[in-house]
């Protein structure tokens, strides 16, 4: 960074507003949550303020571990699928004429205006036995009789990827549209087939964009709460569902706060690890 560091109250004025917003709406609630995670639950009531590590000790159950692992697994899978589909898709959009690009982007952004509830029910309808696409396959003669595919793991995965896909494209679009169109051409004159060019040059030179979109979709999907309940069976419920359950239906706020804090630490660690691997080696040393 260049330039002088800001000095005195006057120079700090412009950042006071965002700093205050961040403090009031993020840091203070987060602090409250961390504090509550050390409190003791009163059965049938609220909680008493003590310092108690019991909530964290209570996390180490098989059930919690299973749900945590499943949440991380399905988020990671969703991130990989969304980026694997979104990257070539975004690349082809950036090679189109400007006007066509805008049409595609507007269509994608319009998906974002749908609420998760609507998306969830739409998918459960599409995958249902009575009105779903299996009827279409029966009509085509591919299947014998219509089946219900929802709720299931795959239904949940479809729903999550559907929500994550527009975000993936929006994250990938700026770096891919800045890619020098001569790079793939150079690769072709050097003897690389179009497919090889795509993987070695287009994907290769967009490593940072791929990693950041993976991290974004992963973190975004971890917090999903509505879709698992609509498209999944109870064994497909993510940690967010469990936390809400604990807080609202069992009114055990200290335990759910501890879950949330632990969940956040684990996901931060995973994101950090991914970024570190993503930076990785860029130049092969001799």
């Amino acid at each position, binding site marked *: 960074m260049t330039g002088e560091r800001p000095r005195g109250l006057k120079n700090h004025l412009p950042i006071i507003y965002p700093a205050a917003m961040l403090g009031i709406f993020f840091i203070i609630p987060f602090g409250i949550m961390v504090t509550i995670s050390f409190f003791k639950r009163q059965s049938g009531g609220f909680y008493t303020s003590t310092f108690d590590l019991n909530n964290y000790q209570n996390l180490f159950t098989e059930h919690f571990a299973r749900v945590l692992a499943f949440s991380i697994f399905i988020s990671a899978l969703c991130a990989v699928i969304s980026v694997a589909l979104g990257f070539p898709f975004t690349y082809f959009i950036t090679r189109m004429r400007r006007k066509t690009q805008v049409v595609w982007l507007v269509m994608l952004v319009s998906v974002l205006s749908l609420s998760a509830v609507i998306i969830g029910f739409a998918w459960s309808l599409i995958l249902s036995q009575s009105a779903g696409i299996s009827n279409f396959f029966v009509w085509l003669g591919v299947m014998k009789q219509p089946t219900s595919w929802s709720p299931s793991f795959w239904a949940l995965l479809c729903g999550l990827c559907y929500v994550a896909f527009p975000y993936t494209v929006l994250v990938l679009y700026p770096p891919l549209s800045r890619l*020098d169109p*001569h*790079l793939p*051409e*150079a*690769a*072709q*004159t*050097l*003897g*690389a*087939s*179009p497919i*090889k*060019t795509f993987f*070695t*040059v287009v994907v*290769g*030179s967009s*490593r940072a964009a791929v990693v950041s979109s993976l991290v974004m979709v992963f973190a975004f999907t971890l917090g999903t709460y509505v879709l698992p309940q609509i498209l999944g069976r109870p064994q497909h419920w993510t940690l967010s569902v469990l936390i809400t359950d604990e807080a609202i239906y069992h009114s055990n706020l200290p335990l759910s706060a501890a879950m949330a804090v632990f969940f956040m630490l684990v996901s931060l660690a995973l994101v950090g690890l991914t970024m570190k691997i993503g930076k990785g080696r*860029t*130049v*092969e*040393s*001799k």
Partner: protein
Amino acid sequence: MMHFMTGLVLKDIHKHYGSVVAVQNVSLQIPHGRFVCFLGPSGCGKTTLLRLIAGLEKPSRGNILLDSSDITEQPAHRRNFGMVFQSLALFPHLSVGENIAYSLRVRKVDKAARQRRIDELLELVRLPGYSGRHISQLSGGQRQRVAIARALAIEPRLFLLDEPLSALDAKLREDMQLELRMLQQRLQITTIVVTHDQREAMTMSDLIVVMGTDNQVHQMGTPLEIYREPANTFVADFIGTSNLLKGIYSDIGEAAVLGTMLKIDSVPQGLPSGNEITISVRPEDISVVPGIQQGENSLHGTVTFVRDVGSSVEIYLDCNGIQIISQSTPQGRPPVKQQDAATAILPPAACKVLTS
């Protein structure tokens, strides 16, 4: 010699994008081992022509042949050509060595052989020991050399360069012109360079292909042929400075220009008398003497400007509203100054007749 079509042959090439014509009526034959420049003003289609040869574009009409085999439909990655792009297009995520060895890696050459070739090429472009460097750590001139080395890694059948030196500053550009020419002479590789800089084209090439704003080829020849015997007024005007005088041809090798009969040594055969023609005379062929002197091929006028740049002197004469520029060495400088009356002498051998 028609059965002996070696080298690169372009047959009646046309390329248009929708209704926009990029290249038309191009038929060329480029022999092996030559250094060729496509020279023309911007928008004349010279880059498109190079991209057609590289296989990055498909011609709308016509054929491209290399050593008698038709490569028009062959995709770029099967042609085994080397190309240097104007933006260089070095892969930012790869090191210098990996950039250079990219084409070898694609062809599954083993690692030891790749490394040998990298060292060899870095030696050739005078960047030894740079293999592990990152592209962002290199200067403009060094990147240029890496791009050249990368294009040469597979010993390509054709070496194509699109305005390769335009991003370099003037001094470095002149050095690289010589270097590129000497490299080509050492490797004996057929090389095509696109440029809009006629000095660059004259410095480097065996053959120059001059293209015009009508997206056609106007002339192909050695640098001196093009300079001395321009095919038409466009070429005469585009290459160097030319005095273009309009006149009426009358037979017995004379033309009426500004009311004076000018003798001309060589006249195109069958040129009918009374035709409008243009006479092109290079400034260095015109001598200026002070005062009004009568004599053969003499035009009278007033000195409007003297441009003395040290290495040469240019004298601008106004002859009845027509500007004539003469150029001489400092030693041969005529004793005239601004506003003097003077006479320009146009030797009959230096007067070239252009009919278009």
